[in-house]
């Protein structure tokens, strides 16, 4: 294999890659030694707390901080005035971290204090006098689109042409009435994807199924709350220790919001207790820096669980309509959808992503998806694993499940008949290269779970899902230690076992033991810019950069061996952890092991290191197929997941255990989304269930062992064939469980979550109609 190849050569034989060693951060995490965001402390640090709006929508008439400032022990009080708008900063982020004139949702930050201890800080918050004028609010996406709805940002959004504010007129075949919103509406954008002639396609259909669906907002549910320690010195140099998925993003955004030079802010990421997309933006970090700047001391801010729910980004809630037409043999002839996602108080819901993913699993000649981005009085949504895709898949895969039932077709066969494959023009535009949906469907059909005979009140569901996967800016350094072991510096936060995977890749490239490589996550002053750990990009991008950095090091080590032997550099090759003389010199010298080269590094030219920086591209898309068996208690509506199977294309699994972990984690989060999780808002627009007692995420006793099958259809854009694996697994579960329930008791859930009272009510409705 060329050492400096620009084009990936697909490697198919491995020694280290594909094995399952323990993760390097494992012992510390299970023994409590690992340092998470709240575990950092700085000498003389203050406690920072944030005052938050108790109203969903209110004009802030005045803020009086004088009494709080006069309280002994209080070192700083800030409002929006202490974070003035800087040229070029992201205005929505600025407004979200601290309200400016209007509180836009329950929990919106209004002021913050730094004090010598938590008791003083809490007392100071109570002394801040805020005079509000409560405004009308709206939290539901359909209500927010109606004429006369309270307008969140008067005059901000351009008028949008839309089919109808009432989806029903579009759905029920009434004459399509196009209207324009007022400039003062809550519709931030309308987006259209697709190709072909949808109306003509539906005329060819033997069967058409269409329905409306709704999903509630769910939180990423990471166990570790947001936490940071900020320290701004009197000379303007600053440090921030923080739990985040993107320390470089935090540095750049905070510097932009606070008017600092980027070089003056050093951000060190902690271990992360879950993020799932929710830690890809800033909330308390610039506030802590502003407090520290004003107080002249380090300030630690740790969110409570209630703050996490009220103020950080859950995913969007949605309201959708989907129509699919098929021939009697199951061939899809047309597909149409309207998706409405609310993204909280600011534009940017993931409706475009949801629209692009909605029908991506299928080869469709005629397809159209219209998406609406809507603002409401809720916290600004944040990314959540495959943002936007699980909701649209819930609707689309639900309709497909019903079509299969009505045609008497096997749920996997109908998907195989229509599956996207290499050469398919995707529903969002581009033509697919090599992809593995068919392989996941075939593996699911062959799995033992698909053959288990079901009992009374039991049912089986199937659903497929798609995610793009991304790459991006990545920078890696590898340093050879004096004893021949290696220090690998990565800039992508480890959110899924990536340090173990990178150590395996380095060991593979060098032909050495996994235990001889130690990977760390570097701070922002130690390594070049790295994009956020998001988009299922880390193993692909950092893996690619690690391969290249190691190959850079190998070239340098071969050069040292050539000097020692007195032969040309190109007459040396690297094999099995050692430099070997090659060509005419083969056998002329004993190989020099990596340990021998390291021992002589100082005497032969100095330290040895490899480095690579790249804006990686070529991440291959990923497909998954899930199969789920459930049992429903017809007397209570309670549901038990009996079996759950995830089959997903990983391209190449570097560390299979952590790939399986991603599959299982996505499935469990999806099961929580479909069965229990939701944001409850009261009539006053305040969140009613801001804690894990009332917002129920799945626990171990709620789910069976999640069975997994790793399909490997190599991605030609990576030297090992790697595809991202972190997000696709959360796309199918919503529909998969809903299809299973329909199969079990004949009730098709179209509103999530399918909590027992809803299932029971639907069952009673079915029984009443039979009577």
């Amino acid at each position, binding site marked *: 294999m060329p050492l400096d190849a620009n084009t990936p050569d697909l490697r198919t034989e491995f020694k280290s890659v594909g094995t399952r060693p323990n993760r390097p951060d494992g012992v510390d995490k299970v023994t409590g030694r690992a340092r998470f965001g709240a575990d950092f402390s700085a000498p003389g640090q203050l406690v920072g707390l944030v005052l938050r709006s108790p109203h969903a929508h209110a004009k802030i008439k005045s803020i009086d901080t004088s009494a709080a400032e006069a309280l002994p022990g209080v070192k700083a009080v800030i409002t929006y005035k202490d974070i003035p708008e800087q040229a070029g900063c992201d205005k929505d982020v600025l407004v979200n971290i601290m309200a400016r004139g209007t509180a836009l949702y329950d929990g919106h930050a209004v002021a913050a204090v730094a004090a010598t201890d938590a008791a003083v800080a809490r007392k100071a918050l109570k002394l801040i006098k805020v005079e509000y004028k409560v405004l009308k609010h709206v939290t539901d996406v359909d209500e927010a689109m109606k004429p006369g709805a309270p307008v969140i940002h008067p005059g901000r959004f351009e008028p949008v042409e839309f089919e109808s504010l009432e989806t029903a007129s579009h759905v029920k075949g009434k004459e399509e009435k196009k209207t324009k919103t007022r400039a003062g509406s809550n519709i931030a*954008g*309308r*987006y*259209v*994807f697709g190709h072909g002639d949808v109306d003509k396609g539906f005329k060819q259909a033997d069967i058409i199924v269409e329905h409306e669906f709704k999903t509630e907002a769910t939180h*990423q549910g990471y166990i570790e709350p947001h936490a940071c320690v900020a320290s701004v010195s009197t000379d303007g140099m600053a440090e921030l220790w923080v739990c985040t998925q993107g320390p470089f993003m935090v540095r750049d955004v905070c510097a932009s919001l606070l008017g600092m030079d980027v070089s003056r802010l050093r951000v060190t990421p902690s271990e992360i207790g879950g993020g*799932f*997309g*929710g830690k*890809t933006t800033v909330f308390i970090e610039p506030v802590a820096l502003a407090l520290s700047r004003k107080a002249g001391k380090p300030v630690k801010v740790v969110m409570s669980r209630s703050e996490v729910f009220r103020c950080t980004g859950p995913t969007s809630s949605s309201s959708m309509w989907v129509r699919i037409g098929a021939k009697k043999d199951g061939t899809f002839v047309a597909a149409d959808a309207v998706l409405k996602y609310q993204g909280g108080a600011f534009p940017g819901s993931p409706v*475009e*992503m949801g*629209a*692009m993913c909605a029908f991506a699993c299928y080869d469709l000649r005629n397809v159209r998806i219209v*998406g609406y981005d809507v603002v409401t009085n809720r916290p600004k949504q944040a*990314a*959540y*694993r*495959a*943002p936007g895709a699980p909701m649209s898949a819930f609707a689309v895969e639900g309709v497909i499940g019903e079509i299969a039932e009505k045609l008497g077709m096997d749920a996997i066969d109908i998907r195989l008949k229509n599956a996207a494959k290499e050469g398919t023009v995707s529903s*969002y*535009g*581009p*033509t*697919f*290269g090599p992809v593995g949906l068919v392989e996941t469907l075939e593996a699911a059909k062959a799995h033992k779970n698909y053959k288990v005979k079901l009992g009374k009140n039991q049912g089986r569901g199937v659903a497929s899902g798609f*995610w*793009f*996967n*991304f*790459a*991006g*800016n990545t920078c890696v350094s590898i340093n050879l230690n004096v004893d021949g072991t290696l220090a690998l510096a990565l800039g992508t936060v480890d959110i899924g076992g990536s340090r173990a995977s990178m150590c395996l890749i380095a060991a593979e490239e060098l032909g050495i033991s996994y235990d001889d490589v130690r990977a760390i996550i570097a701070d922002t002053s130690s390594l070049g810019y790295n994009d956020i750990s*998001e*988009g*299922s*990009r880390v193993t692909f991008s950092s893996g690619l950069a690690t391969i290249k950095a190691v190959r850079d090091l190998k070239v340098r080590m071969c050069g040292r061996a050539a000097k020692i032997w007195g032969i040309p550099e190109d007459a040396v090759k690297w094999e099995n952890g050692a430099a070997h003389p090659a060509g005419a010199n083969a056998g002329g010298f004993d190989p020099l092991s990596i340990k021998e080269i390291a021992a002589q590094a100082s005497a032969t030219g100095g330290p040895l290191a490899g480095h690579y920086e790249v*804006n990686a*591209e*070529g*991440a291959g898309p990923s497909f998954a197929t899930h199969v789920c068996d459930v049992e429903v208690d017809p007397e209570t509506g309670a549901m038990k997941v009996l079996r759950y199977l995830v089959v997903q294309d990983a391209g190449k699994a570097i560390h299979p255990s952590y790939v399986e972990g991603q599959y299982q984690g996505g499935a469990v989060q999806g099961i929580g989304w479909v069965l229990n999780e939701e944001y409850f808002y009261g009539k006053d627009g305040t969140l009613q269930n801001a804690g894990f007692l009332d917002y129920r995420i799945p626990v171990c006793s709620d789910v069976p062992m999640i069975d997994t099958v790793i399909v490997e259809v190599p991605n030609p*854009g990576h030297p090992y064939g790697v595809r991202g694996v972190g*997000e696709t697994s959360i796309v199918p579960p919503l529909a998969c469980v809903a299809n299973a329930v329909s199969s079990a008791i004949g009730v098709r859930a179209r509103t999530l979550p399918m909590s027992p009272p809803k299932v029971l009510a639907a069952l009673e409705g079915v029984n009443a109609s039979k009577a």
Partner: protein
Amino acid sequence: MLKVRLGGTLVNKAGGRTEFEVEGANIMQMLRNLGRTCPELEPMLKKGVSVAVDGQIYRDAMLQPVGPDSEIILLPRMAGG
């Protein structure tokens, strides 16, 4: 000439037009010429878009070569979780 198709938000900004023909040997040149042809797109192009070239999505690789036979589709800037 390159054939460039638009998707999503970009279609709105381009007044409903979905396809353009512009010159360019790489993504950067193609986007620059597209902005000149359709100034309404310029702010969005500067803010950042994703470009699918022959099925491969590029978020930032401005120097990626493109040719008359390339399938080029402009998509909204994408991000994951």
